[in-house]
């Protein structure tokens, strides 16, 4: 595949913004001044928060680009990452020289039970009608994992504490707060044994990336792999097998092995996910992810730093935005622009849609 680059990136601080998804998209993407040939847009909430259909045209119009072709893309919570992969294919087609990928969500206008039902909409009907929520899917998967490998919730706590610590220095993070073991143990149970401090906060936010064939941070590997809507239709405890499949394609494309990744942004919507993902990506052996988390292997000083930005846990989780935000963070860190510079030349982003049913792995290099 021809070379594709992230040539510019923008993000707004996540949190409770009091603005609709279209306005947030404008606020973020208007900082990118190059006129794109085409716009790709993602927002799970724009029909709820803005009652705005045809939203990609609405965003283009706000940006003064009404005559610019646009699409809206939806793979649920991995939509932001989907934009980057689709943009790469569009650029490789030779028809377009620049693609502006924008994702925005306003989720905090919903009350908590309403938001919980909104997120559960990505599950199959028989699960959500039984009462299943995304945290309860994560809790059931964790229950299978912990029984098989003898893991306990101390490993979940270590992920939560690490990511909140990492997020302290991130000006874009929704929850910039140091979390102690006591805070964790006192936090409310959401779906046993998972606590509030195991779950990413519901946030508003936006991110934008300009992709071209000219220069910047190169996209060296991509993988996209899907699986059953229900995480429990999969054999045994292999809920994240499609994450492994996406990773295999991405590593092959970049001609690397997992050990060549300098740092990674993973989809820690729930702390067990980060542990299971480190295994599915090959950063550690099956059944060893919880030990790697507790031993500090995924800390900034560890062998494979995970979620230096604070991850979804600290930065927040405007669902459609998170995959794109991961790549903005990686762009900032690899180029030393904006708030952070990280030693290293190669980083990985993993974004999962639904219960790991629509997954994207993207490798970026300088």
């Amino acid at each position, binding site marked *: 595949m021809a070379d594709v680059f992230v040539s510019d990136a923008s993000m707004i601080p996540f949190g409770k913004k009091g603005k609709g998804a279209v306005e947030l998209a404008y606020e973020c993407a208007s900082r990118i001044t190059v006129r794109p040939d085409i716009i790709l847009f993602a927002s799970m909430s724009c029909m709820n928060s803005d009652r705005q259909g045809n939203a990609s045209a609405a965003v283009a119009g706000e940006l003064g680009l009404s005559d610019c072709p646009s699409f809206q893309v939806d793979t649920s919570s991995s939509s932001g990452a989907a934009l980057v992969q689709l943009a790469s294919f569009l650029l490789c087609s030779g028809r377009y020289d620049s693609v502006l990928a924008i994702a925005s969500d306003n989720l905090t206008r919903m009350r908590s*039970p309403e938001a*919980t039902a909104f997120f559960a909409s990505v599950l199959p009907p028989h*699960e*959500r009608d039984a*009462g299943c929520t995304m*945290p309860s899917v994560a809790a059931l998967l964790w*229950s299978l994992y912990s*029984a098989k490998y003898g893991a306990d919730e101390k490993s979940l706590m270590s992920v939560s504490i690490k990511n909140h610590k990492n997020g302290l220095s991130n000006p874009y993070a929704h929850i910039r707060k140091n979390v102690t073991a006591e805070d964790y143990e006192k936090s409310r149970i959401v*779906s046993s044994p998972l606590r509030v401090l195991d779950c990413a906060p519901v946030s508003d936010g936006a991110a934008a990336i300009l992709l071209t064939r000219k220069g910047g941070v190169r996209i060296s590997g991509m993988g996209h792999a899907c699986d059953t809507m229900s995480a*429990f239709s999969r054999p045994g405890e292999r809920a994240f097998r499609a994450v492994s499949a996406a990773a295999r394609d991405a590593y092959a494309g970049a001609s690397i092995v997992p050990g060549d990744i300098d740092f990674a942004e993973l989809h820690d919507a729930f702390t067990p996910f980060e542990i299971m993902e480190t295994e599915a990506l090959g950063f550690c052996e099956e059944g060893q992810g919880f030990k790697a988390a507790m031993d500090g292997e995924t800390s900034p000083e560890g062998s494979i730093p995970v979620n230096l930005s604070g991850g979804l846990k600290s930065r927040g989780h405007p669902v459609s935005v998170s995959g794109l935000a991961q790549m903005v963070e990686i762009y900032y860190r690899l180029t030393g622009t904006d708030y952070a510079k990280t030693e290293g030349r190669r980083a990985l982003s993993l974004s999962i849609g639904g219960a790991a049913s629509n997954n994207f792995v993207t490798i970026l290099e300088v």
Partner: protein
Amino acid sequence: MILLLLGRCDCGAVSLPPEKRCHVCGKNTMEQMDDGRGRVIAVTCLFSPQEGMEEGIMLCLVALDAGAQVVCRAMGKVARGDEVTVRESGTFYICDSSV
């Protein structure tokens, strides 16, 4: 007692709810009745429910003897390892320990 309608494929895959096309091989599946017996392999108690639902719903993952796994709402107390019976309740599945 016949309680459950499953999907069964020639390839050996079992589905619940019954699938029109098999999630393993993509072929058409056959519907088959089952007694719904299985074992609880994971449990969670939900304190942040969806809009319109109650706090404290017990959800469990049941591995059916017939071969499929399914998330059920538990009727009464269940624990990991319990033998249960799964049946349909409208648009979802419930289970209890009345084997």
